[in-house]
C-alpha cells in the first residue's frame, strides 16, 4: 500500500483499530507518522479530559443482583406513579388542568344538535374533586405505536395555538409578579422565596374530530365506548391565564427540562431537593364551548375509559357539577387523599407516602384562583400552615 492514510485512518491507528497492511504502511511512512503526530497533539485536550471516563475503578455501586431488585421496585413504582407525579410540577399541573377541563367539555356534548347557533357555555373551576381510578388498562397501552401516532395526529390536526406561554419570566417580588401575571399574587407571610417566576398566558382552540377520536378509542380496545357523531366539528376554545410559581428552598430550575420534582428521577429528586416547596397560583382556566351541554353523559365515557365500570362512572357523574368542578383522576394505590380546611375553604390534600419518594400536593380554589402547594416529603402540615398564612 503506497497511498498515504487519511486523517480518519490515522486517528483510528492511534487506537490500533486498523488492518495490518495499513499499519505496515504507517510504520514505514514518515509523512503519515508526522501527520499522525500532529493529530495526536491537536486532540490532546480531548484525550486527557475524557480519559477519566475509562478509569472507573472504585465506582462499583450496587451489585447487579441488588440492582435487579431495585429495578423491579423501580418498575412497579413507575407503573403506579408515572401519571400521579405529573401533578407535582406547575407546568404539568397547568397542562393537566387544561386536559381535564377539555376532556370534561369534549365528553359533554349532547347528541343531535346544531352547533352554529348555540350560545357558548363557559366553564370555570370553582372546586376540585379527586376520583380514584385504576390506570392499569391505560398503562398497558404504553408502547402502542399506532395509538401514539393517532394521538399525535389528533392533537396536530385538532389543536390550534393562539397564544404560546414561552419560557417562565423571573420576578423579584410578589408585587412585580402580580403586575406581570395580572392578578394579585399571595405569598405566605414570614417566608422568603428562593425564586418567583411567572408563566405567561396560553390559549388554543380545538376542533372536535369524532372519527379520529373514535378510532383512538377503538385502537385502545375500547370500541364499546361510542362517541356521539353530533359533536363532530365543534369548536372548543381554551384560555389558560398567566400563572405564578413561588419556590422555597432548593428547587429545580423551571427553565430546564426534566428537572421537575418527581419527574423521571425516581428517588433522586427527593435527595437533590429535600427542602423544596412550590406554591403555584393560577386564575381558573376558562373553556368556551357550544351550549346546552350534557356533561355527565360524556364525562361518563371518559371515566369508563380510565378504568371505571359503567355503574361506577354513572354514579360518580351524578355527584359532580361538571361546569365548575376540576376532576383529578388519581391512580388507585398510588396515593391517598383527604379533604382539609385551608385558607378558609375546603381543599384537597393528596399524599404519596412511598418510602423512596414521598410527595404531597395541596389543592384548593378561592376567589377564582387555583392554588397548589407541592413538595417532596411527608410534612404536609407545612403546606397547610403556608396556606393558612396567606394574606
Amino acid at each position: 500500500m503506497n497511498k498515504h492514510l487519511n486523517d480518519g485512518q490515522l486517528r483510528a491507528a492511534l487506537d490500533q483499530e486498523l488492518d495490518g497492511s495499513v499499519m505496515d504502511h504507517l510504520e514505514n511512512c514518515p509523512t503519515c507518522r508526522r501527520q499522525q503526530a500532529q493529530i495526536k497533539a491537536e486532540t490532546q485536550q480531548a484525550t486527557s479530559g475524557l480519559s477519566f471516563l475509562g478509569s472507573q475503578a472504585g465506582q462499583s455501586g450496587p451489585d447487579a443482583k441488588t440492582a435487579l431488585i431495585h429495578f423491579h421496585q423501580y418498575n412497579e413504582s413507575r407503573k403506579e406513579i408515572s401519571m400521579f407525579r405529573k401533578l407535582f410540577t406547575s407546568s404539568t399541573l397547568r397542562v393537566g388542568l387544561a386536559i381535564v377541563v377539555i376532556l370534561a367539555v369534549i365528553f359533554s356534548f349532547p347528541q343531535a344538535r346544531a352547533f352554529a347557533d348555540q350560545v357558548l357555555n363557559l366553564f370555570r373551576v370553582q372546586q376540585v374533586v379527586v376520583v380514584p381510578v385504576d390506570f392499569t388498562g391505560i398503562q398497558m397501552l404504553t408502547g402502542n405505536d399506532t395509538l401514539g401516532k393517532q394521538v399525535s395526529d389528533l392533537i396536530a390536526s385538532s389543536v390550534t395555538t393562539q397564544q404560546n406561554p414561552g419560557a417562565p419570566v423571573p420576578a423579584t417580588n410578589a408585587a412585580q409578579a402580580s403586575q406581570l401575571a395580572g392578578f394579585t399574587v399571595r405569598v405566605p407571610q414570614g417566608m422568603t422565596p428562593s425564586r418567583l417566576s411567572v408563566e405567561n398566558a396560553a390559549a388554543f382552540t380545538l376542533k372536535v374530530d369524532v372519527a379520529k377520536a373514535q378510532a383512538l378509542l377503538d385502537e385502545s380496545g375500547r370500541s364499546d365506548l361510542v362517541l356521539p357523531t353530533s359533536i363532530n366539528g365543534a369548536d372548543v376554545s381554551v384560555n389558560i391565564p398567566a400563572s405564578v410559581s413561588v419556590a422555597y428552598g432548593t428547587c429545580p430550575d423551571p427553565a430546564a427540562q426534566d428537572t421537575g420534582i418527581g419527574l423521571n428521577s425516581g428517588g433522586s429528586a427527593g435527595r437533590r431537593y429535600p427542602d423544596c416547596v412550590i406554591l403555584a397560583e393560577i386564575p381558573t382556566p376558562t373553556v368556551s364551548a357550544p351550549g346546552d351541554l350534557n356533561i355527565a353523559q360524556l364525562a361518563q365515557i371518559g371515566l369508563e375509559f380510565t378504568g371505571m365500570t359503567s355503574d361506577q362512572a354513572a354514579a360518580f357523574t351524578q355527584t359532580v357539577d361538571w361546569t365548575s368542578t376540576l376532576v383529578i383522576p388519581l391512580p388507585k394505590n398510588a396515593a391517598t387523599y383527604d379533604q382539609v380546611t385551608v385558607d378558609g375553604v375546603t381543599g384537597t390534600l393528596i399524599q404519596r407516602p412511598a418510602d423512596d419518594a414521598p410527595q404531597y400536593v395541596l389543592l384548593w380554589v378561592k376567589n377564582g384562583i387555583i392554588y397548589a402547594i407541592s413538595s417532596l416529603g411527608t410534612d404536609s402540615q407545612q403546606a397547610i400552615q403556608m396556606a393558612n398564612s396567606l394574606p
Partner: protein
Amino acid sequence: MDEIISQERSIQAMKARKAVAVDSRTGSTESSLSSKTFEDLFLEHWSAIYRLLVSMIGDPAEAEDLALETFLRLYRHPPKTGEGTNSGGWLYRVATNLALHSIRSAKHREHYEMSAGKGALEDAPETRPPQILETEEDHRMTRLVLAKMNPHRAQMLVLRYSGMPYKDIAKALNLSPASVGPLLLRAEREFEKVYLALIEEEK
C-alpha cells in the same frame, strides 16, 4: 459529520426495515424479551452501564436512577429486530443519551456549581488535597464541554473513551466501522474547540 451520520443511519435503517419486514412475514415485527433474557442482560451489563453513568454524571444517586431508567426502557420497549442482536450497544446508546440529556438540562446549574468549585478550590479546606479538587474541576469542565457539543459527537466521545472498540461503537450508533475513525476525530476537534471557548469565557 451530521450528514455522514445521517447517511449511515439511513442505510442502517433500511437494513433494519428489511429485517423487520422478514419478521413481519412470520407475524412478528417487534422483538420482545422474556424475563430470563432480560435478567441475563441486566446482570451482564448493569455494572458497566452504572460505572459509565457515574463517570458521566458524577452523582452516584442520579447515575443509579439513570441506569434503572435505561434498563426500564429495555424492559418495556426492547429494540426491534435488527437492533436486538446488539443489546449491549443499544443499552450504551440509551444510557449515554439519557446522561447527556441530564447534563444538558442541568448545565446552567452546573455552570454555577463550577464557578463555585473554583471558589472552593481557592479556599480549599486542608482536609481535601488540592489535586483532588483540581481533578473534580477537570471532570466538571469536561461534562460542561460535552453538554455544549453536538449530541452525536458527544455520544461518540463518551462511547470511545469509556473503552468501547470501534466495531461496537459502529453497532451501537448504526455506523460502518470504517467511519468511526473520521467521526471520532471530528468529535475530538469539536471538543477542543468548545473547551478553548469555555476557557476564554471563564477568563
